[in-house]
C-alpha cells in the first residue's frame, strides 16, 4: 500500500513525537519538545501565509499576544474555562485579522511588512501599557487548564513537562493535518496561484483579495493558539509574547526550514528552538552564531533547509 504524501508526512510526524521520548535523558527534554511544538504550531500558520500565499507578516506575534492574554483574562473577567478562553482568543484573533487584513493586504513586499509590523507593535503596546487590565510589562498569571488533573484522576498520571509535551504535540499534529488538507483544497490552490503571480491568479479567476485575507485569518488563528499554549503551559504571560522579536522569530523559523512545506517549517522551528539551548556552551557568542546561521542558510539554501537538503539527497541518488 502506498501512502499519499500527506499521510506519510503526518505519520512521520506522529512517530517522531511518540518515539522521541525514548531518547530523552531527563524531563527537561519534554519541556524543550513542548516548546518546539508550540513554536511549530505558530510556524505552520506562517507556512499558510508565506509559504502558500506568498505574503509577509512581521506582526504575527500580535495574534499570539491576543491568544495568550485571552487565556489570562477571560477566565477572570468572563468566568470562562481556560480551554474556552483559548477558543475565544482564536476567534478574536481571526476577526482582528479579517479587519486588519482587508486593508493592509493591498500592500506589497516591504510595505506589507511595515504595516503588519505596525499592527504587532500596537498590540504589544496595549498589552504593556494597560497595566490595570493586563498587569503591564511584568505580565499576568494564567489559570490552570485542569486537564492534567483530569488525566491523573482517570489513571494517567503525567508530570507537568510530559503532559505539555503530549498536549502540544497533539495540537501540532492537528494543525499540520489541517494545513496539509488546506494545501490540496480549492482555497489552497488559489493561494498557491497567488504566490506565483497575483495578476496571473486574477486572470484565471481567483478572488485575490479574498484569498489573501483567508490566508491571513487562518495563520492568525494558528499564532493565537500558539500564544494560548504558551500562556497555559507557563501559567503566566508577558507582553514579550507579542513583541517584534517574536514575530521575526516565527518568520525566520518558517523560512529557515523551508516555508513551502509543513515539515520544513517544523524543522525550522526545531532548529531555532534547540540552537539557543545548544549554544549556551558558548555563552556570550550565542548571538553571533545565531546571526551567522540565519545568514548562511538563507544565502546558501534559499528555499530553506528541508527543500535544499531533499534536493541534495535526490541529486545524489540519481
Amino acid at each position, binding site marked *: 500500500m502506498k501512502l499519499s504524501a500527506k499521510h506519510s508526512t503526518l505519520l512521520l510526524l506522529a512517530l517522531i513525537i511518540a518515539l522521541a521520548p525514548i531518547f530523552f535523558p531527563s524531563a527537561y527534554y519534554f519541556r524543550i519538545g513542548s516548546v518546539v511544538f508550540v513554536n511549530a504550531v505558530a510556524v505552520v500558520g506562517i507556512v499558510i501565509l508565506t509559504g502558500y500565499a506568498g505574503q509577509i507578516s512581521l506582526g504575527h506575534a500580535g495574534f499570539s499576544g491576543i491568544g495568550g492574554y485571552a487565556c489570562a483574562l477571560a477566565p477572570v473577567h468572563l468566568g470562562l474555562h481556560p480551554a474556552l478562553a483559548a477558543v475565544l482568543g482564536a476567534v478574536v484573533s481571526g476577526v482582528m485579522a479579517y479587519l486588519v487584513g482587508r486593508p493592509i493586504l493591498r500592500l506589497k513586499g516591504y510595505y506589507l511588512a511595515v504595516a503588519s509590523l505596525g499592527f504587532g507593535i500596537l498590540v504589544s503596546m496595549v498589552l504593556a501599557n494597560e497595566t490595570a487590565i493586563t498587569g503591564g510589562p511584568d505580565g499576568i498569571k494564567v489559570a490552570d487548564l485542569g486537564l492534567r488533573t483530569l488525566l491523573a484522576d482517570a489513571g494517567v498520571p503525567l508530570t507537568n513537562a510530559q503532559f505539555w509535551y503530549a498536549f502540544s504535540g497533539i495540537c501540532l499534529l492537528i494543525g499540520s493535518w489541517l494545513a496539509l488538507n488546506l494545501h490540496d483544497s480549492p482555497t489552497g490552490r488559489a493561494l498557491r496561484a497567488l504566490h506565483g503571480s497575483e495578476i496571473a491568479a486574477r486572470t484565471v479567476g481567483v478572488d485575490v483579495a479574498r484569498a489573501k485575507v483567508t490566508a491571513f485569518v487562518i495563520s492568525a488563528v494558528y499564532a493565537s493558539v500558539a500564544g494560548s499554549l504558551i500562556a497555559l503551559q507557563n501559567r503566566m504571560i508577558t507582553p514579550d509574547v507579542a513583541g517584534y522579536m517574536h514575530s521575526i522569530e516565527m518568520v525566520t523559523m518558517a523560512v529557515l526550514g523551508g516555508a513551502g512545506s509543513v515539515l520544513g517549517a517544523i524543522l525550522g522551528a526545531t532548529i531555532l528552538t534547540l540552537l539557543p539551548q545548544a549554544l549556551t556552551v558558548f555563552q556570550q557568542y550565542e548571538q553571533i*552564531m545565531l546571526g551567522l546561521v540565519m545568514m548562511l542558510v538563507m544565502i546558501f539554501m534559499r528555499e530553506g533547509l528541508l527543500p535544499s537538503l531533499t534536493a541534495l539527497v535526490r541529486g545524489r541518488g540519481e
Partner: protein
Amino acid sequence: MTELLQFLLSGITVGAVYALVALGFTIIYNASDVVNFAQGEFVMLGGMITVFAYKAGLPIPVAALFAILLTAAIGVAFNRVAIETARGAPVVSLIIITIGASIFIQGVAQVVFGKELHRLPSFSGDDPIRILEATILPQSFWVIGGAMVVFVGLWLFFTRTLLGRAVLATSNNRVAAQLVGINTGFVMTLSFGLSAGIGALAGVLITPITLTSYQVGIALALKGFAGAMLGGMGNPKGALIGGLMLGLLESVTAGYLSSQYKDAVAFVVILAVLFAMPQGLFGRKATERV
C-alpha cells in the same frame, strides 16, 4: 504657545535622528531593492566605535572619521559576503539575511564593547539655546544639520552625478545597466559603503543626545524604516520628510494626547498613509512584472 514650540523643537530633534537613519536606508534600497534591517547596527557601530576611540585618547573628529570609515568598510564587506552572494533571493530571505546580520553585528559588539551604556560629550556644549520661551540643545542643531547635509548630498548625487544615475539604473534593471556599461558590482560596493558611512555618521551625531549601547540599533532601525516607508522608500526627500514627520507626530502626541501611546499614534498614521498611498508620500510607482 510656548508648549507647542517646545513640542515642535523636540519633534524636530527626534525627527532628525529618524531622518538620518532613514536616509541610510535609501541608497542600498535604490541600488539593490533590499531594505537593510541591519542599518540600525551601522548607526550603533558609528556611535560605539567613536566612543571607544575617544576614550582611547583620539580627539572626537578623528575618532568619528575612524568610526565612519571602519563602518563603511564593514558595510562593503557585508555586501560582498552576503548580499551579492544571495542576489535574486526572495524578499523574505533578504529580510532574514539582513536581520541575521543585525543579530550578528550586535553579538560581536556585545563581546567587543560590553553591555554598558555610553555617551559622547556634546560637540558644542550643553547650554540650551533659547528660542522665545522654548529651549533646544546645541547638539540638536548638529543632528538637524547632519540630516540636511546628507539629504542635499544624496539629492545631488542621485540627480546630478553620473554615478548616482548609475545607481538608479542598476536598481531599475541590473542587466540593462550592465549592457550600457555600468559596473554594477562597483555600484553595489559604493552603495553599501555610503549607506553604512551615513549610518555611522548618524550614530556619531546622535550619541550625545540618545546615548548608545550595543543594542540601540534595532529600535533605531525600526523607527528609521517606518520613517522611510512613510515618506516612500528610495526617495531621499521621502526619508527626510518621513523621518521628521514621525518625530513631530510623536512629540505632539506626547505633548497633547498621551505619552504612553505616542508610538501607537505614529504607527496608526503610517498605516493610514499607506492605505491611502500604498507607495508612501513620495514613493515611485512600481509596476508589477508578470
